[in-house]
């Protein structure tokens, strides 16, 4: 899976995001580090912030396209 495809999923899920960054950590197309900064996270606990990211990437997580996912979320408040 291309990092750009993940970026597009995240951009679609977080249209107000100030930052959506996806790094293919190994170059193999299945270990990703994603960073999202969005007002959607304001006031949410870390676990709820990460749940939103997991939800946005539910399909590639379920079908195994993403083997390993590292998440960094930030609110904008």
């Amino acid at each position, binding site marked *: 899976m291309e990092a750009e495809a993940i970026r597009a999923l995240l951009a679609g899920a977080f249209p107000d995001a100030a930052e959506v960054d996806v790094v293919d950590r190994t170059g193999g197309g299945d270990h990703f580090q994603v960073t999202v900064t969005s007002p959607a996270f304001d006031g949410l606990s*870390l676990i709820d912030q990460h749940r939103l990211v997991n939800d946005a990437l539910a399909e590639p997580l379920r079908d195994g396209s993403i083997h390993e996912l*590292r998440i960094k979320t930030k609110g904008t408040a």
Partner: protein
Amino acid sequence: MKTLHEQITDVIAEEPVALFMKGTPQMVMCGNSLRALQALHGAGAPITTVDILPDPRIRQELSAISGWPTIPQVFVKGELIGGADITEELYASGELQAKLDEALGSEHSQEVKVVTLELG
């Protein structure tokens, strides 16, 4: 024999800190599982680990119960804390230690143990 579902919910409910991981503390099979283990260890947590690798049904049941898609998963007193990233972040900020003290008391043990699920 209890079902896999019952065994997993028992571990979550009964163990002070449950870490569902790939491998065991003696032989960690995944970088993220290692990160979660190290953060918990650094925070002085008692840790009960469950290896999800022996059977794919373990991971399926666990994710169905927790609503969390990835491994590792950390529970404190039955509550899902998150995966490796959140556990590391909470450890770095000191919130993990505070949460453990609050949930388990400041004199809690730091015992590490491994639970092996019975597969039918």
